[in-house]
């Protein structure tokens, strides 16, 4: 079956509805509404954290208070002021005693949720014994807590640690303490400070020296409970000469209210290490009138600490009412490489302000930015990027290509790059185009037998190919489907 055919059939099945919009009926344990030091202590106590982490959180909370009314305003997104005292900062599926030791102890309702999302956790675990390597290890985060991580044992044989960050705090405190906040400090920005104070769970990965992680690591994030935000924290460390590919998927129920997702992701690549981080983000985008949807305010940053290290971000952003996200790379090690490949769609009344920062600090560092933005309906989309070459980064190279595709005359596509070069031996090149799907292209496809939606889907997939082919195969297919679904109804 061709990807396109699959897309079309998926569209038919979904018939224009957000297909992940269901709600799991499960008992939830919640923190009291609002945010103060007591809540921070409550979260820390719930997670039985050591004193140092509580102090770390409290410091972040005080920084956040200091940043009050300092929410970023420079982004091209518009929404009513968020009352941070109205939200609930901790929600967890209720369970007795300790967390589940195996999938058998996980609430079956939860397992069914992940199956509906296309992530059969149990099957994965069973297959592990049969099919061996080549599978995907999954960490499933439901509201604020990680509910299951598959393949842990197999990974442990290689020395790879893949577990919820709360577990890593308990079992590998020295690693967490050393790297937590080392790339995104607590006071980095308003949302990062908030996350640092109240982060609930997320994934932790450590790949030891010289190890090529034998399978894709994956986290599926799911916001379920009403009136909550999700504040996960992911920390990935690739030690010298190691390599890891990490995938992240996100969905949320369809609700009339806006829900806040303020995550922080930190990546550390030491000498000769390589991290590939892929995201397919499909949070609920809200309805055609702009009601509901996720506010996706995320800080993602990687540090190429060692020489010859590499960090690659690939993102397919189809969901969320508002996206504010700039996965960045600090190119500290000589000859280190940073990449950013992005497809973002804004349909309905979605607003996306996304891009990247490539900060060249070491010599002969290289970065590539390929951004494809698609606006339709009343969507507004901005690429915002920074490429900076510091005075010691001789031989630095950057290439940036930003293309915007507009579908219909009520949407907007904007490109705001900022290039700052302080070394004469650097070469930085940026190109951008904005255009629409031409009538000639559409007619050509229709003359060959494609209906208008198929034609648009095909042209858009072609437009995005340079980015999609960066994704691991399983994700690429899903991403292609999502592009088609997200643009449903975009052509009149």
């Amino acid at each position: 079956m061709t990807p396109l055919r699959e897309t079309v059939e998926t569209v038919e099945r979904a018939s224009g509805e957000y297909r992940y919009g269901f709600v799991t009926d499960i008992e939830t344990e919640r923190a009291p509404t609002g945010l103060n030091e007591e809540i921070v202590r409550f979260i820390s106590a719930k997670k039985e954290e050591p004193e140092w982490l509580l102090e770390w959180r409290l410091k972040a909370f005080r920084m956040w208070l200091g940043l009050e009314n300092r929410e970023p305003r420079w982004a091209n997104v518009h929404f009513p002021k968020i009352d941070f005292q109205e939200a609930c900062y901790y929600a967890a599926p209720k369970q007795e005693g300790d967390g589940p030791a195996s999938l058998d102890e996980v609430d079956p309702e939860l397992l069914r949720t992940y199956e509906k999302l296309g992530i059969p956790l149990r099957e994965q675990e069973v297959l592990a014994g049969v099919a061996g390597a080549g599978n995907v290890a999954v960490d499933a985060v439901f509201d604020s807590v990680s509910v299951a991580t598959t393949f842990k044992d197999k990974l442990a044989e290689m020395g790879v640690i893949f577990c919820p960050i709360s577990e890593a705090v308990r079992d590998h405190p020295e690693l967490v303490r050393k790297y937590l906040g080392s790339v995104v400090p607590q006071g980095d920005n308003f949302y990062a400070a908030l996350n640092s104070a109240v982060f609930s769970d997320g994934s932790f990965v450590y790949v030891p020296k010289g190890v090529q992680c034998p399978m894709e690591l994956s986290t599926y994030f799911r916001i379920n409970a009403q009136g909550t935000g999700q504040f996960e924290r992911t920390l990935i460390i690739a030690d010298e000469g190691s390599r890891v590919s990490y995938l992240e998927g996100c969905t949320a129920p369809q609700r009339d209210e806006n829900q806040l997702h303020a995550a922080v992701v930190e990546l550390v690549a030491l000498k000769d290490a390589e991290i590939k981080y892929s995201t397919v983000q499909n949070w609920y985008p809200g309805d055609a009138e702009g009601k509901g949807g996720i506010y996706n305010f995320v800080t993602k940053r990687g540090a190429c600490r060692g020489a010859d290290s590499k960090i690659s971000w690939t993102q397919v952003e189809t969901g969320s009412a508002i996206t504010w996200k700039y996965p960045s790379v600090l190119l500290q090690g000589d000859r280190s490489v940073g990449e950013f490949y992005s497809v973002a769609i804004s349909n309905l009344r979605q607003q996306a302000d996304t891009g990247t920062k490539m900060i060249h600090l070491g010599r002969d560092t290289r970065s590539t930015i390929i951004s494809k933005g698609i606006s339709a309906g009343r969507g507004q989309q901005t690429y915002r990027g920074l490429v900076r070459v510091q005075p010691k980064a001789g031989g630095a190279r950057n290439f940036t290509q930003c293309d915007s595709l507009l579908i219909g005359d009520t949407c907007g596509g904007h490109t705001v790059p900022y290039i700052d070069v302080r070394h004469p031996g650097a070469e930085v090149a940026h190109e951008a185009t904005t255009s629409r799907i031409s009538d000639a292209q559409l007619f050509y496809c229709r003359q060959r037998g494609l209906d208008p939606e198929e034609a648009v889907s095909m042209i858009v997939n072609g437009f995005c190919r340079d980015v999609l082919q960066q994704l691991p195969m399983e994700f690429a297919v899903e991403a292609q489907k999502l592009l088609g679904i997200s643009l449903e109804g975009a052509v009149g």
Partner: protein
Amino acid sequence: MSEPLLSIRNLRASVDDKEVLKGIDLSVAAGEVAAIMGPNGSGKSTLSNVLAGRDGYEVTDGEVRYDGQDLLAMEPEERAATGVFMAFQYPVEIPGVVNATFTRTALNAQRKARGESAIDAIDFLKRARATLGRLEMDEDFLRRDVNAGFSGGEKKRNEIFQMAMLEPRLAILDETDSGLDIDALRIVATGVNAMRNPERTLVVITHYQRLLEYVVPDSVHVLADGRIARSGDRELALELERAGYAAFQPA
């Protein structure tokens, strides 16, 4: 010959409120190769675009019957599914979409509309390779983006390739010979001739007679100032070659 596959009656059409087709009458039988010739601005391209269903062409009068159906009432993709193919005068580039994917997706979209099963990738590839061989085209064609970076001749050959793969019942070749050198012309003509059979109708739209030396038409119609000014057999094309269109130009 039998019942016409395509029958056009008193077709009038305007572009930007300017009448270009001023009452066309034309019948083409199944299996017939009809050449439509005419000077620049006579309405040749308008006719092919109206038949294929392109936006921006307003039909103000008349009708077009195709295989007993009202062709003008159909969407472009419906026309394609019932076997109408247009080889574009200016084939369109679609960056990022690979030729093989495009052609197979089109083929399966048409098959689905006709209630036929999809062709799988392996069968498709076999057929595609054989077709490419006949058209003296490199297999590399399949992996390249649709028309992107193609030379003029490659684009036209790609149209013929798609036509061969989609096996239409009515193929409209809109100035397929324009911009081709003699070798490319011969290859294209071979491809077109290979498609000729008693079930398939070809409408060859051209300014010059030279394509018709290779693709010998059953009938020739002169389009001038939005009307069929004269119809005849192959001899008419040769006559036009000698005398030019002067006799048909508006005073």
